[in-house]
C-alpha cells in the first residue's frame, strides 16, 4: 500500500494556545479516515496545516512523498490534494452550474493556452454529468445564494473533486444539515469518492456518520492525537468515549458530540 499523506511531528501555537502538539499521522492510499474531537481539539488546525492555509511552527507534511510543508494552498492543490470547507466556499453571484464550470475550467485548462474559451460543449457536458453524479442537477440554474445547505455542501465537494485529486479532506461535511439529509449526502459523497478510488479524510462530529463511513478514526484532544486506529476500536476506547464523545463512564453523557 502507498502512503499518501504523512504528517511528522507537527506543532502549531497561536500565541499561548497550542493548537497542534506533536502530531504524527500516516494515511495509506484508499483509506477513509474520520477525524473526531471536541471543539478546539485541533481537528481543523490539522486540516488547515495539511492544506497550506496555516503553516506549522515545526514539523513536516509529505503528500505522496513530496514535501508540501511550506507550499501555498494553490501549489498543494496542484500536487493532488483537494478540500471542502465547513462553510461551503462558493461563488455567490454565480449559478450552481457556473460555480462548477469555473472549477472544471481551471482543472482542465492547466498547461493549455490561456485564451481557450471557458464554455466549450465538452466542458458543459462534463459539468452536467457531475451535477447528476452529485444529485444536484435540479438546482443547475439556481443562484447559490438561495440553495439549501445540503446542496451547498455537495456543490462545494463536487468543485473540490473535479481536478482529479489523490487525497480529499472534507471539513464537517454534514454540519448544518438535517439528520434526515446526512446519510443520503454522505452516500453520494463517499460513493463518488470511492468510485474514483480516492483517499478521504473527513472531520465529523456525528458519531453515527463516523462509524458508518470511516475505516479508521483519529481522535484529537487538546491539540494532540488521543487515539488512532480502526473505527470500532477507537470509538470503544474509554478515553475517547469520555473526552471526545462526551460519554461519562458512569453512564452519563456530556455534550461534546452529537449522536
Amino acid at each position, binding site marked *: 500500500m502507498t502512503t499518501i499523506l504523512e504528517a511528522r511531528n507537527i506543532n502549531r501555537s497561536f500565541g499561548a494556545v497550542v493548537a497542534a502538539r506533536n502530531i504524527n499521522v500516516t494515511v495509506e492510499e484508499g483509506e477513509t479516515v474520520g477525524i473526531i474531537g471536541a471543539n478546539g481539539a485541533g481537528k481543523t488546525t490539522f486540516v488547515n496545516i495539511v*492544506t497550506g492555509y496555516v503553516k506549522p511552527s515545526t514539523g513536516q507534511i509529505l503528500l505522496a512523498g513530496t514535501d508540501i510543508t511550506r507550499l*501555498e*494552498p*494553490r501549489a498543494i*492543490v*496542484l500536487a493532488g490534494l*483537494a*478540500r471542502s470547507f465547513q462553510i461551503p*466556499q*462558493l*461563488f*455567490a*453571484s*454565480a449559478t450552481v452550474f457556473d460555480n462548477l464550470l*469555473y*472549477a472544471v*475550467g*481551471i*482543472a482542465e*485548462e*492547466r498547461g493549455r493556452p*490561456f*485564451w*481557450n*474559451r*471557458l*464554455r466549450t460543449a465538452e466542458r458543459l457536458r462534463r459539468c452536467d454529468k457531475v451535477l447528476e453524479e452529485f444529485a444536484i442537477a435540479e438546482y443547475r440554474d439556481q443562484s447559490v445564494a438561495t440553495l439549501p445547505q445540503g446542496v451547498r455542501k455537495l456543490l462545494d465537494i463536487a*468543485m*473540490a473533486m473535479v*481536478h482529479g485529486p489523490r487525497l480529499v479532506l472534507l471539513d464537517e461535511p454534514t454540519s448544518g444539515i438535517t439528520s434526515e439529509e446526512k446519510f443520503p449526502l454522505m452516500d453520494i459523497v463517499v460513493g463518488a469518492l470511492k468510485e474514483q478510488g480516492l483517499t478521504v479524510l473527513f472531520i465529523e462530529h456525528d458519531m453515527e456518520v463516523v462509524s458508518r463511513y470511516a475505516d479508521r478514526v483519529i481522535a484529537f484532544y487538546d491539540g494532540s492525537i488521543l487515539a488512532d486506529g480502526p473505527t470500532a476500536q477507537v470509538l470503544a476506547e474509554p478515553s475517547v468515549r469520555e473526552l471526545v464523545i462526551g460519554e461519562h463512564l458512569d453512564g452519563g453523557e456530556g455534550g461534546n458530540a452529537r449522536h
Partner: protein
Amino acid sequence: MGYGLGLVAAAAVLVGAGWVLPEWALFLAIVSLAKGLVVLGLVVLWRTGLVSFGQGLYYGLGAYTVGLLPQITGITDAVLLVATGTAIAGLVAFALGFLLSRYREIFFAMLCLAFAMILYGILVKTEALGSTDGFHVVAVTYLGYAPAIESANQVLYVFTAIVVVVLAGLVGRYLQSVTGQMTTAIRDNELRVEYLGFSVRRAVHTKFVIAGALAGAGGAIVATAIGHVDPEMVWWITSGEFVFVTILSGSGSVIAPFIGSTVFELLRSFALEYAPNFWQIIVGGSLLAVIMFLPGGLWSLVAKWRASGR
C-alpha cells in the same frame, strides 16, 4: 454571427462613420473612443472587484511616449507610436503589478493613485518636459502616408476606430477565456479560487497589465488627436474621470465603455457650451442620477432592451 464577423461588422460601421460625421464630431469621437479604451481596462479590473484611481499614470505614459518618441528617434508613424505607448504603459503596469496585486479595496485604489501622483510630481518639476505647460506633439504619419491638415482628423478617426475594434475584440475574447472569467469569481471568493488551483495574484496582475496597456493606448491616441501633452493627463482628476465614466458605462460588455465615454464627452461638451459656469454641477448630477436610477450603468438599458426582445 460569429465573434470574428461581429468584429469586422463593428469595424465597418465605425470606420464608415468617419465619412458621415462632421468635423467637430470626428474629434469628439476620437477622444471618446480613445478614453473608452482606458475605461475598458477599468471595467476588467472592476469585474474583479478592483477600482484604480491611478489610471492617469498609464494614460499619461502613453501620451508622453507619443510626444517624446518623435523627438528622440524621429519616428512619426502612428502605428509604432501607439504600439510603443501601449507597451511602455503595459510594462510599467507589469512592474508595479508585483506590488499592487497584493492589495485589495481602498488600499489598491489609493496605491494606484499614489503612483500616478508620483509621476505627476516628476512631470511638473521637469523643465525639459515643459513642466506644467507640457509640450506639443508633432503631426503623425500612417505607414508612410502623411495626411493633409484638413483630412488629418478623418484619418486619425479611422486609425482609432481600427485600434479600438482590435483591442476591444481581444479583450472580449480574453474575458471569455478561463483566465478572463476569473473576474467575478475572484471578486466573489478568492479563497475558493486558490483552492481550485488558480493563482489569484497572477490573475489580478494580468488584469492590471491589461488595464495599464489599454490606458497607454488611449493616452497615445488622445495625445495624437490633441497635439499636446501636459501633466494634467496624469493628475488625479483625470483618473477620477475615468472611474466616473466606468460607473456611467457599466461593466456588462466590452462595448459599454465606448458608449459611456461618448455620452460623457457629449455631456461635458454641451454642458461647457451652454452652461460654462455650471458644467461640473451638470456632470456631477448626471453621475448621481446614474448611481440612483441605473446602478448597472448605461449598459443596463441595453441589456434590458435586449432581454425584452427575446
